[in-house]
């Protein structure tokens, strides 16, 4: 199945199997997102990419495009909802940006900037999860984890190691490590693994690499989340790569 869809009045083509997100990003139309990464299967947990499609609110990363679909994306109402979602993610964890090595390179923080988040609005949870520094090259701060499962997907689908998983229910849901001790140091994870580099926040960080980029030169000092995500899409599109993907 293929055809065209319309997003905010702009018509764009889609091909079989493409979601609204796929078609939008391919056409250079930005839909804010955190858990979506074009290199991986969609996840649908962050809900930032919710759009109105044919009159209903749907997650654009999981909703297949269909011929003639009319999508509403960049409106004050939807962006206010997205800002509230980012506020929820901020108060749910301990996102102390001034003391985080990911600051300036963090997609959650950049989403706050992009959506102009001025206050946390909600009460803070201050979760008490422990840092796991057992691995020689990587450490985990689960109080910064937004449960996007990109590390779970990368470790399972690309590294073929299944180092990570999500455990428990509700607000207790958290990232777990697949070793008998539950410690990252007791897994086969390597610093070169894809899973070590897909975290959009400061939950998975490489040791001894913090604060190496001066302020003003960091990723999101240079560009907005929108620019970053549109470039990220271009990198995975086969026709754009010199090696043909």
């Amino acid at each position, binding site marked *: 199945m293929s055809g065209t869809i319309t997003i905010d009045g702009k018509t764009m083509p889609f091909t079989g199997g493409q979601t609204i997100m796929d078609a939008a990003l391919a056409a250079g139309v930005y839909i804010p997102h955190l858990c979506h990464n074009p290199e991986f299967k969609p996840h649908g947990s962050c809900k930032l990419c919710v759009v109105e499609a044919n009159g209903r609110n749907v997650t654009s990363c999981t909703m297949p495009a269909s011929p003639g679909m009319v999508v509403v994306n960049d409106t004050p109402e939807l962006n206010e909802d997205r800002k509230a979602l980012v506020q929820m993610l*901020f108060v749910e964890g*301990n*996102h*102390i*940006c*001034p*003391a*985080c090595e990911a*600051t*300036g390179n963090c997609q959650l*923080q950049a989403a*706050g*900037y*992009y959506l*102009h988040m*001025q*206050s*946390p609005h909600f*009460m*803070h949870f*201050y*979760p*008490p999860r422990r840092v796991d520094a057992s691995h020689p090259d990587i450490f985990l701060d689960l109080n910064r984890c937004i449960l996007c499962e990109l590390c779970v997907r990368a470790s399972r689908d690309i590294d073929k190691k299944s180092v990570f998983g999500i455990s428990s229910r509700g607000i207790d849901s958290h990232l777990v490590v697949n070793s008998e001790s539950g410690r990252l140091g007791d897994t086969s994870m390597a610093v070169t693994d894809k899973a070590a580099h897909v975290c959009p926040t400061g939950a998975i960080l490489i040791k001894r690499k913090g604060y190496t980029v001066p302020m003003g030169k960091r990723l999101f000092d240079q560009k*907005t989340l929108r620019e970053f995500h549109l470039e990220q899409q271009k990198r995975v599109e086969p026709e754009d790569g010199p090696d043909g993907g």
Partner: protein
Amino acid sequence: MADEKRKIRIATCSLAGCFGCHTSMLDIDERLFDLLEMVEFDRTPFTDIKHCGPCDIGIVEGGVSNAENAHVLKEFRENCKVLVAIGSCAITGNVPALRNNIDLWNCFQEVYLYDPGTEGKQIPNDPELPLPFDKVYPIYEVVKVDYFLHGCPPPANAIWKFLTDLIQGRQPETGHELLRYD
């Protein structure tokens, strides 16, 4: 004095803050002279006034970590028409809130009893000292806050833009380039 001569009155304070936000306020540099044409200061660390009187704008740096912080914050809220949380500490608790998952008594023992450099080995207990809370709270979890100015500290240009907007009766609008959380 004629009504039109009445200047906007501003109070500021630092609760569980580091005075960095106040330093960033001073970083507006010579624009301080322009500011003083428009406003006069009530209680602030820059004046000798001991208590916050009726003000147009109250600016609060730092989170709420002890009983005295809570008293000062409530005095500001009662006296200021507009209350502004300035800096990440007032807005999220920030770095001081890293103690929120450490038992307070353990903190005290570590600092006053176990640290090899301490003399006397006594946890301070004079009633003159404010009792700390078990957690550090952002100020909007204690009183209503009208505006938030993010940053650790907010850039001087953001403070200047925010204050001039507010003083001149506009909705304060700090654009994307002045918004930062770090």
